[in-house]
């Protein structure tokens, strides 16, 4: 029995393995690939990711942000690359370059303004979309990981969507993921959801760099902390309970939300504020962690 001719045509398994290998090869050029996840939506994870990226960029480090939130992309808006589209070169798809020289790749860059993500039906019955949509979106993430020409980066932050399924996909695709930052808010409901995400990460053997407690306190007009947004608090105790490091708390500053939404991460011009200092302290802890 000869297999030479059959082996001329790579089969499906070989192609899938080749796709995964291309992710490993691409990410090998990057110093630290870090996921930012919560599991819970609305905790300010994307804004925090943008500010951490900008803070690293301000230090002269080469940083990229991959927006893995296929349906809720926001990185282009927050990092000042809204409207920039993907271009292609010999080494792959080129990311947009945002504030603080942060490179950005996002589904937004493939679509006209305000157009939702809608996949063309790949044949067959439209009612069967549930069969292939999840696979399509996992492969879209794989493609952004494998085909983006980041060049040499010191940090690539991957902004994960709510839920754990895409995070688990990421863990499968990126065996060299350096670690994961977990974001929560001071709410027992949030803690219950985030607890499940942490458990999923721990079960998968992912390295958890630590917990950030976002929206912990409220900054008033006078630039001082004037009260709590949520009554519970307890982020530090929650981190201890989950046996992960506590990276710090970031109070809610309306200016942070407003300026980051407008493509100017708050930390760029307000590093001296309470929230700005809190973000820089988190970045410093991350830098200490990777240099240890």
């Amino acid at each position, binding site marked *: 029995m000869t297999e030479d001719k059959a082996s001329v045509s790579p089969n499906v398994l070989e192609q899938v393995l080749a796709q995964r290998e291309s992710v490993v090869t691409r990410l090998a050029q990057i110093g630290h690939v870090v996921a930012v996840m919560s599991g819970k939506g609305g905790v300010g994870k994307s804004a925090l990711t943008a500010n951490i990226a900008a803070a690293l960029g301000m230090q002269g480090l080469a940083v990229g942000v991959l927006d893995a939130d296929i349906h809720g992309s926001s990185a282009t808006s927050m990092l000042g690359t809204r409207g920039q589209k993907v271009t292609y070169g010999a080494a792959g798809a080129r990311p947009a370059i945002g504030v603080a020289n942060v490179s950005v790749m996002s589904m937004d860059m493939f679509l006209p303004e305000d157009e939702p993500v809608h996949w063309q039906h*790949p044949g067959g019955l439209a009612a069967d979309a549930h069969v*292939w949509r999840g696979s399509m979106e996992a492969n879209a993430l794989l493609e*952004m990981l494998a085909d983006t020409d980041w060049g040499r980066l010191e940090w690539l932050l991957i902004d994960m969507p709510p839920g754990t399924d895409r995070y688990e996909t990421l863990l499968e695709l990126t065996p060299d993921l350096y670690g994961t930052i977990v974001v929560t808010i001071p709410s027992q409901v949030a803690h219950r959801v985030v607890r499940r995400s942490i458990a999923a990460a721990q079960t998968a053997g992912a390295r958890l760099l630590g917990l950030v407690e976002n929206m912990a306190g409220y900054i008033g007009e006078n630039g001082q902390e004037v009260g709590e947004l949520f009554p519970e608090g307890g982020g530090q105790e929650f981190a201890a309970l989950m046996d992960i490091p506590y990276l710090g708390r970031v109070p809610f500053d309306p200016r942070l939300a407003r300026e980051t939404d407008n493509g100017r991460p708050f930390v760029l011009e307000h590093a001296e504020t309470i929230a700005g200092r809190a973000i820089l302290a988190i970045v410093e802890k991350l830098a200490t962690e990777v240099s240890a």
Partner: protein
Amino acid sequence: MKFVCNECGEVMAFEDNTPSEDGSSMNILYRCPNCERSISMVTNAGETQMVRSLDVNIGHESLETRASQPMSLIRDALAGAEPAQTPAGPEPVWTEAALKRLSAAPSFVQGMVHRIYSDFARQKGYAEITPAIMSEARDELGMMGM
């Protein structure tokens, strides 16, 4: 998955992959290299969708093809996706015969196939796309069944 010719004991070789007109199935042809017997594996709609969503191509002769088409799944499957920046050079002219051959492809892949052949022609410096150029591209890029 492999198919073995029961008569010869040979592993049958992939020969062609032809999508159905409505795109809901693929007719994948294998032939015994020894006795020339052939079989066709016909996928159902669910199998077809699953294969396409994996961003794999039954019958690809070269894994390099994908590398030359970054973000191909997103660009081709995302409704409303904006056209990618194309390689430098004038837009090649499609001959009538080439357009007729293109129209034989299922409607949902025609855009992708048009782009791949156009990019190929620009890279090669061809001013027009003929069936012969399409065959050349098909051979070089390993696009079986297109």
